[in-house]
């Protein structure tokens, strides 16, 4: 599937008196990894929720390959090829890892209630293909041995990887990752970086990565946008952002853990 370009045009959202995002415009090139960084409360997750239709913007719009996403309900945005992970993981915790991925494949299973009730060939074929695809995706994120484990029983790092597999099951062209490296150990963060690069290079996805963990962001991103108090503070290559005095003052300098 072809990677998509994302255009965010002067997007704003207000929650009561709070301007969570203020006239933010970002262009994301197809088949690239673009990171959004910024201190807590900068509006990063709000941006993801605006792109995926959970919130409606006060002004501005989001375009995917020139078509407006703004105004569509979340499930239609997913159908356009936008998948995401969640900051605090949002898995179907009482289902197996495998079932979580199968739910991600929902859209690709075409059969209806008649086919399932009478177990028609269309049902068996679709379920067989889905089971195989789920196995591949679990293997891709290194969870093939945990297929039957309940999602809620997985370790945090595994849960994040399962969410990634579920998001990939949707068949995205654009993948939004909300703090995928938060709480991961150094080695896990390293693995994550490798997986993200593979997703771009081998599957050809466009990735929008939101994170605090500089090690991952600096290693994989081609461009970085820095948000602060809902506004765009800086944008550029990792080197440019790293040496930007405003960024150092607002973010990197103030948070030694993240350096």
């Amino acid at each position, binding site marked *: 599937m072809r990677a998509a370009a994302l255009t965010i045009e002067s997007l704003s959202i207000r929650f009561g008196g709070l301007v969570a995002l203020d006239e933010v415009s970002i262009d994301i090139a197809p088949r690239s990894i673009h990171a959004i960084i910024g201190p807590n409360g900068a509006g990063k997750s709000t941006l993801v929720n605006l792109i995926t239709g959970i919130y409606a913007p006060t002004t501005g719009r989001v375009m995917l390959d020139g078509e407006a996403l703004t105004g569509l309900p979340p*499930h239609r945005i997913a159908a356009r090829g936008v*998948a995401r992970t969640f900051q605090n993981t949002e898995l*179907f*915790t009482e289902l197996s890892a495998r079932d979580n991925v199968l*739910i991600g494949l929902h859209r690709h299973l075409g059969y209806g*209630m008649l086919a399932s009730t009478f177990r028609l060939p269309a049902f068996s074929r679709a379920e067989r293909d889905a089971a195989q695809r789920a196995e591949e995706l679990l293997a891709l994120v290194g969870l093939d041995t945990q297929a039957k484990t309940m999602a809620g029983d997985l370790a945090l790092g595994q849960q994040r990887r399962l969410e990634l597999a579920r998001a990939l099951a949707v068949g995205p062209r654009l993948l939004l990752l909300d703090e995928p490296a938060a709480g991961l150990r150094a080695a896990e963060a390293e693995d994550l970086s490798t997986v993200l690069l593979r997703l771009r290079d081998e599957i050809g996805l466009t990735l929008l990565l939101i994170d605090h963990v500089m090690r991952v962001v600096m290693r994989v991103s081609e461009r970085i946008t820095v948000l602060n108090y809902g506004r765009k503070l800086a944008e550029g290559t990792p080197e440019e952002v790293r040496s930007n005095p405003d960024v150092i003052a607002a973010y990197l300098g103030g948070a030694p853990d993240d350096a």
Partner: protein
Amino acid sequence: MIVRLLLLALAAALAVLPFVASSHLIFLVAMIGSTSIMVAGLTIVVGFAGQISIAQASFAAIGAYGTAQIASMAGLPHWIGLPAISLITAAVGYLFGLLSLRVADHYLALATMALCAIVQLLLIHLEDWTGGAVGLAVPPLEIGSRVMTRPVELYAVIMPCAGLTIWFLHALSTSRIGRAFAALRMSEVAAAAVGIPVLHYKSTAFALSAFFGAFGGGLFALLTTYLDPAQFGILESVRLIAIAVIGGVLNPFGPVIGSAVFVLLPETMGALGRYMSLVFSLLLLVFVVVSPQGIAGLSARFRGLR
């Protein structure tokens, strides 16, 4: 394997029952069958899809009264009227489910309760259509020229329907639709994020619950031959929920297990029968606290699988 053998044994027992059992026992088992079909609807909407519905008695009422009146007013045979009113009720259920766009959780539960109250009021006050507070006689089931009024004849009609309903629950829960229900039960946000149209599936769950409510209600009407609006109030909805929960709300056999307990237990209690509602209330409380997955979930608990 063991489950299959048990199922075969159960099917064999149910097939032999009409030849050996008393007419009263056959009636009771048929009652278990029709009740379990009504409850199957709740298993879908409450268990699979995780929505609270206190409207099941009103769907059953529409099915029961509809079945009776399509036969006596339009003169259509029950084998047309019963499926027809069930499909109509399913459409009502779907439209009702669309309400969940505007109201969610506790408020949706209250809305279903209001629906139940309204339908019962209509049953009492639309006298020309429903017979009012006096009730309504149900024309008997006729197949060909044969009038089916004996319990054993209705048993032969109801039990295969109950069997198909259990199969439907099993097939549903292992399909993409059942998985979508499970997804919206656990996280609507995540369900929408993977492309599941949440509102459509909620409405579908309500449509299915309405369908089985009406179908089971129609069969119940044929079995009891007389309808009283007092049977279809909020308390009846709550009773059906209790049956669903005690049977096990995530298991295709939950409705049958729960219905069997609720139908057979009063029969075995003799003089204590008058304390039945107390017993059931306590049972419900115990299961909600100790085993939310009901009786069907107990075996899994003992095996330590869950």
